């Protein structure tokens, strides 16, 4: 039966090649859209590792020339502002951060640790950060006073980082070379921290300690402030005025993290929504086109179908034959598509999406294409099954 169908398909190879090519490209489009959607919605339901409610960001305007250290005066004036912020009764915690959540800036690097290249996201923070962002420590401890005088730079990593680098071994106390004669030392492990929030992929997060006394650490240009819930928004003006008195040379602006979050999520979601809408329309267009072409095929194969009816094939039989042919075409297209898509993990696709969302996108795309082809074949094959043998043969 299948061989016979293959022969029928092969006989009309030129017209069918086009349909196969169309299904193949549609498969790729659906696969891409579905994988992105699954990957993002999956990320949405997982915890992000911090709490953005009631957090303000005092974002200062200074740039430190590529890589060089901040001047002692600059360091002192930022720390002066930090101490001043903590003095307000409305503020429950405050910390300096270099690349805070949702702020559109990221420090990313690849290091060779234990003979393995590890890509990591880094933020440089003072010890108050855990209280501001409500970070949960699962092993060891967060930064504290004793880190101020540490010879190594204390760091806290998240569980993703610990697992990637040390596997099941205890990461506490492990050292990594930062520079000549300068080491990073892990003092604690926190729950997975996804800096860009709900839509960001899992990352290997590392926090480097920044000392108040400027003995080590890279000064950041953000002061994150956690307020007691229900603080009057007008407090912002009071805070800004006070900080201007403390550091008259500093330019800064106060932003609310919920607003920053909305902007950051929008920037990630809008392109996906646009892509999804365009993809949907493309698929709709292909579906209509396929129906048209199949319909036309059936009209053109009147004689063949008539002959089959005359030889005793039932209407249902013809119905099934046409559908099976379409399904066969889809199978060919999906086979080529699958071979291509499964090359992607070899090219490193799993560093962008998780294997689970990749598989889900793949299976979803397979199912969609089969459903689509069968749906498009239904009406034309029903038409074919209604053909009367007498009508069909008379055509000659």
């Amino acid at each position: 039966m299948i061989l016979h169908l293959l022969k029928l398909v092969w006989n009309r190879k030129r017209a069918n090649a086009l349909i196969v090519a169309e299904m193949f490209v549609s498969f790729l489009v659906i696969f891409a859209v579905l994988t992105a959607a699954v990957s993002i919605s999956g990320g949405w339901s997982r915890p992000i590792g911090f709490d953005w409610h009631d957090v303000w960001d005092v974002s200062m305007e200074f740039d430190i020339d590529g890589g060089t250290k901040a001047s002692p005066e600059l360091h002192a004036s930022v720390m002066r502002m930090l101490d001043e912020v903590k003095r307000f009764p409305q503020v429950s915690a405050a910390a300096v951060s270099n690349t805070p959540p949702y702020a559109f800036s990221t420090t990313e690097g690849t290091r060779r640790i234990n003979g393995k290249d590890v890509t990591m996201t880094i933020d440089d923070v003072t010890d108050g950060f855990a209280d501001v962002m409500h970070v949960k420590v699962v092993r060891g401890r967060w930064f504290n006073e004793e880190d101020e005088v540490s010879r190594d730079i204390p760091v806290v990593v998240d569980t993703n980082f610990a697992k990637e680098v040390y596997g099941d071994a205890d990461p506490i106390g492990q050292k990594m070379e930062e520079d000549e004669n300068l080491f990073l030392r892990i003092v604690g492990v926190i729950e997975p921290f996804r800096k860009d929030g709900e839509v960001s992929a899992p990352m290997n997060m590392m926090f480097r300690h920044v000392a108040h006394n400027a003995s080590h650490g890279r000064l950041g240009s953000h002061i994150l402030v956690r307020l007691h819930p229900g603080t009057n928004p007008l407090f912002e003006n009071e805070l800004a005025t006070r900080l201007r008195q403390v550091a008259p040379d500093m330019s800064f602006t106060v932003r609310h993290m919920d607003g920053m979050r909305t902007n950051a999520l929008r920037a990630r979601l809008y392109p996906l929504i646009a892509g999804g809408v365009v993809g949907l329309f493309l698929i709709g267009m292909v579906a209509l086109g396929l129906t048209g072409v199949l319909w036309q095929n059936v009209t053109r194969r009147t004689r063949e179908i008539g002959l089959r009816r005359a030889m005793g094939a039932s209407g249902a039989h013809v119905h099934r034959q046409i559908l099976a042919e379409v399904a066969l075409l889809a199978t060919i297209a999906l086979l080529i598509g699958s071979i291509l898509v499964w090359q992607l993990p070899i090219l490193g696709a799993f560093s962008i999406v998780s294997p689970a969302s990749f598989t889900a996108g793949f299976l979803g795309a397979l199912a969609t294409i089969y459903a689509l082809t069968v749906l498009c074949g239904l009406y034309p094959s029903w038409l074919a099954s209604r053909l009367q043998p007498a009508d069909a043969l008379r055509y000659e």
Partner: protein
Amino acid sequence: MLTNYIKVALKVLARRKFFTFISLFGISFTLLVLMVATAMLDNVFAPRAPESKFDRVIGVYRIGFHGENFNATGNPGYRFIKEYVLDLPGAEATSVFSNSSTIGMYHDDRKIETHLRRTDGAYWRILDFDFLEGGPFSEDDNANASFVAVITDDMRTKLYGGGSKALGKTFEADGQRFRVVGVVRAVPITREVGFSEIWVPIRTMKTREYERQWMGGFGGIVLARNRSDFEALRREFTQRTSRFVFEDKTFNRLAAGLDTRLEFAGRAVLGSQFKGNRALVFRGILAGLALLFMLLPTMNLVSINLSRIMERASEIGVRKAFGASSRTLIGQFVVENVVLTVIGGLIGFVLSVAVLAALSRMELIPYAIFDVNLRIFFYGLLLAIFFGLISGVYPAWRMSRIQAVNALRGGAL
């Protein structure tokens, strides 16, 4: 002859409504997407007010320091622009300005989130703002660090209420009090150099720290008398920067160039190390993306066209029997297809006007008015004809190969 083809084409379209609907749906949607994308790119790259002289402007928007182990890329610093871009010999004018940064202002117990940019005096000669009140500040204002500001009409409403004049009034931003000397019409956020809501002199910065910085926070532009001067200006710039000495020894190579807006986009996409014609490669990438997007609609249209031709086998047979050459038939079918795509294109154009108006109203991008001008209409028409040609040629060729005898007999083709 052509009018005849068009008449036949319209008759054929009216015959099988379902097929016509599928074709037109596909074509108009495809062109709708392409036209919306074109309008957005036009909004970013085309020289439009206040950057209407930008076909003659090249600038330094991003620089890179490269070393053995470390790379740093970012906006140039004030010092870099001052030493290597300002007063470039052969230029009509040069300007330095900071990036527009978000600031929060506290005005009458309200918080206003807005954008502030610091500029020199020449900025106002290179860009042509539409002044509703007053005028720009001058280079003297900058040199004296006068606390004067130009604001947009939108900002005027936010600060002083609708319908009131702003000239001479003051406001406080980042702890400094500025006096309004000019009001301009609001600028879309897509204009990299022109956009802001408040403009003040550079020297009003709280510290002079910025004057020491090689990297961060600024940009510089050069207005050439003529596009043909770009070459000489770039040579001059390269010669100047070849003397650059790194204070930080981790770096030993500088990546910087005077770019048009398109070349800058190319630099962002291709990386600053890329050698070669960035603008051309960037255009190539855009065209490639458009072609990739058109792949599926084209295949769809081709298969529908093929089906329709087979339906017309007898007509083709008759024409062949009466001596029409293959070339004539190909020509006829391609013309028919172009007619179809242009009709689809017109529908797509009308739809894109509606979609763009909706996008502008939704204010996804602040102050961006996505309008359809003649240039975009022209691009759209070009796209439609191109689409019609590529989707019509293969079916036409198949049609021309139909055997007249078989076609007339009504047998297999």
